[in-house]
């Protein structure tokens, strides 16, 4: 066997296809990372960035497609093969063990650290790497990770990923590494990334701060809907052209019903988050979209509003807000209960006297809503899990709509729901809004955001833009989501 030449890609993924249920996460992607290059990966929510990252680090197995390492095709690719080949990943959500020290976490990441004196070796390796990447840091390697601040945790995670112990580090994937670092630490990291590239290593950088991507990467790959829509050397891009290429082919002005609710007294308002950005307000009968990249403060805003307007200990007679959860399995359905019980749970106070539930009233309520939102089931006594995902979500909608709450909060409720059900949900929302209900809708999907009357765009935990009427366009939303941290 001849040695793999230097021109062979570190890793090459060809025609990668993956789908989760009805959602096509990857739709025939080809991506090759050469030694000594930094590739920037950008795209809006659901573009498939995380999926391709998990394919490259071995966490997900491709449904279709091939993977080659150093020019050699690999049959069985998994986390272990990836690590043995020198592929490391720094995950967006922090993934260290909080009950272990920095040194001990290094041991977890590097299985070759064992035998007598492993503690000493691990400490010196991780301390040296921290000193190299973040000179002037104040992290003690004997400290428990749970006691560190969030940016220190991120620094430790980056340092352990770049540490070399048994194998050479060939490729490091950095998924939003600067989101919890301040400006000077981010600069230190990006400087180190450039130095690492010079020594022949490769980096895949994912960031919503386009300035970082443009200044650090050699090549930028733009993804949309599981496809690569543009891949060019970074000098050929500008912030403006990047944002444009992330959007879809420019559509004509959509037939969006433009409604401007006259600015009367808002039914709901919230102060600015973290002393930054714009305050939030909502008027009667409005559908308000919360846009921006996932995890930039939308869910927190919704839960804040909910907690502020619902009773602390006791349930209020007439709740002001109702909540439709996004993660059905985690905080939506009661999996062992019937459809009836799942739907009527938020309404039980109105259906009962002296603590006993009126079965007939409950049935009437459920049948009304079943007809109204067309839950497809023969018998509402069936368990909720007998329904398809989309219909389960409809039950959750009915649960919120059946209350007398004026404001309905929705946390990306149509995740993983088929397109037909979505259309039905949209029309229910519109008719309920026309009756005077207010909807606050966090969605990761551009089409849904474009249905809203008014849109707040979130970036780094704060509202950075308010768009209304004809301003609600994909282009404007993308521009605000990817604005530099300075905004």
């Amino acid at each position, binding site marked *: 066997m001849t040695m793999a030449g230097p021109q062979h890609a570190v890793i090459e993924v060809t025609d990668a296809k993956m789908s989760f249920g009805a959602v096509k996460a990857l739709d025939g992607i080809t991506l090759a990372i050469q030694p000594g290059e930094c590739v920037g990966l950008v795209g809006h929510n659901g573009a498939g960035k995380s999926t391709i990252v998990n394919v490259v680090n071995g966490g997900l197995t491709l449904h279709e497609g091939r993977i080659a390492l150093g020019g050699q095709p690999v049959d069985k690719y998994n986390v272990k093969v990836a690590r043995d080949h020198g592929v490391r990943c720094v995950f967006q959500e922090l993934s260290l*063990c909080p*009950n272990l020290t920095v040194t001990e976490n290094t041991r977890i990441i590097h299985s070759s650290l064992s035998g007598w004196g492993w503690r000493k070796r691990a400490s010196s390796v991780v301390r040296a790497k921290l000193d190299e990447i973040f000179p002037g840091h104040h992290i003690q390697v004997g400290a*428990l990770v749970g006691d560190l601040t969030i940016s220190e945790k991120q620094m430790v995670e980056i340092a352990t990923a770049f540490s070399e112990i048994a194998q050479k580090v060939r490729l490091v994937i950095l998924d939003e590494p600067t989101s919890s670092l301040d400006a000077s630490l981010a600069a230190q990291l990006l400087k180190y990334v450039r130095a690492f590239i010079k020594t022949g290593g490769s980096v895949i950088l994912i960031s919503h701060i386009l300035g970082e991507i443009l200044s650090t990467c050699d090549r930028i790959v733009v993804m949309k809907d599981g496809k690569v829509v543009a891949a060019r050397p970074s000098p050929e891009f500008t912030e403006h052209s990047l944002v444009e290429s992330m959007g879809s082919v420019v559509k004509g002005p959509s037939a969006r019903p433009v409604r401007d609710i006259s600015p009367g007294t808002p039914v709901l308002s919230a102060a600015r988050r973290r002393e930054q950005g714009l305050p939030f307000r909502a008027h009667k009968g409005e559908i308000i979209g919360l846009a921006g990249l996932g995890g930039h403060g939308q869910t927190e805003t919704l839960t804040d509003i909910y907690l502020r307007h619902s009773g602390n200990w006791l349930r209020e007679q007439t709740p002001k807000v109702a909540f439709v959860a996004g993660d059905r399995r985690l905080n939506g359905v009661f999996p062992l209960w019937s459809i009836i019980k799942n739907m009527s749970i938020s309404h039980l106070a109105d259906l009962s006297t002296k603590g006993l539930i009126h079965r007939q009233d409950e049935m009437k309520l459920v049948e009304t809503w079943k007809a109204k939102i067309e839950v497809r089931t023969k018998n509402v006594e069936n368990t909720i899990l007998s329904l398809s995902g989309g219909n389960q979500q409809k039950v959750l909608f009915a649960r919120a709509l059946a209350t007398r709450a004026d404001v309905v909060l929705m946390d990306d409720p149509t995740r993983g729901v088929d397109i037909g059900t979505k259309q039905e949900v949209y029309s229910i929302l519109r008719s309920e809004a026309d009756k005077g209900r207010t909807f606050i809708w966090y969605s990761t999907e551009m089409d849904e955001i474009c249905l809203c009357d008014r849109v707040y765009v979130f970036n780094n935990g704060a509202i950075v833009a308010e768009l209304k009427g004809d301003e609600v366009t994909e282009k404007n939303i993308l521009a605000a989501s990817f604005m530099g941290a300075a905004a």
Partner: protein
Amino acid sequence: MINWFTRDAARLLIPALSLTVLLLVIFYLQPRAMSYNGLNLLFNLAVPIALATIAQMLIMTVNDLDLSMGTFVSFVACVVATFLNTNPLLGVAILAASIVVYAALGVLIHVRNLPSIVVTLGMSFVWGGLAVLILPAPGGQSPVWLRAFMVSKPPLVPLAIIASILIAVVAHLLIMRSSLGVVLRGVGGNLRSVERAGWSIVRARATIYALAALFAILAGLALVGLATSADANIALRYTLLSIAGVILGGGEFVGGRVSPIGAVIGALTLTLAGSFLSFLRISPDWQIGAQGMILIVVLALRLLFNRLEKQRKSA
């Protein structure tokens, strides 16, 4: 410079203090306890409890709970007092097989994603049944060597103290210092990150369950050595005592936060609580209640301590 005043050290401080206070009160009530024989008598029965507590702590390291600890130790005691005495080879084989069963339970719990309390609760009836089959009535006899070892009198320091220290040190080296222990605690702390680093979680669970079985077997051996005979219900109290000991010693139910030294101290404290009551001439019927009170006081102290710590940090 190393910051010694870490959360882990603070975690150990409260159990150590409570043991000291309890010991001082006992010495005040009964000065004769302050002798070689007195200390040996006070702490004798703590040795099997400490071993069972370490076994429970190992299970709790991976966020599980073993509700069969008491019946398993009873089962082991019955095997030791019968088979190990009359047919040592068969006795060792049975004990080795029980370790394999524990490892298999770990695999089952992980692979089928079952709650450990349900599986071990079920197993507690299996162990209890086997124990009754082996010894339908109290009886059997401790192997001579075991009895001789448990009543031996080393110079200067009583065996009970030496054994407790030894258990604490071995468990500390195993779970807190070794590279294996780090991975096992990592499973409790953040399972996903350990998995992503390429470790086999199934193997980690099997290892920790097998280790727990080993310590539980040692507990059964020590118990028979002290009691000279066995009974199918001899160690039923150990299930709750071992859990209480781990918690008292600074461990937590989830998150892989455990402390072997603390666990041993917790076991000693719970044993002393019984003696403390008899010195006060209070009926032993109150013992469990008193142990519960001690647990509540210590946990309240820990909460208070954590709150102070948080305030200091945010200040």
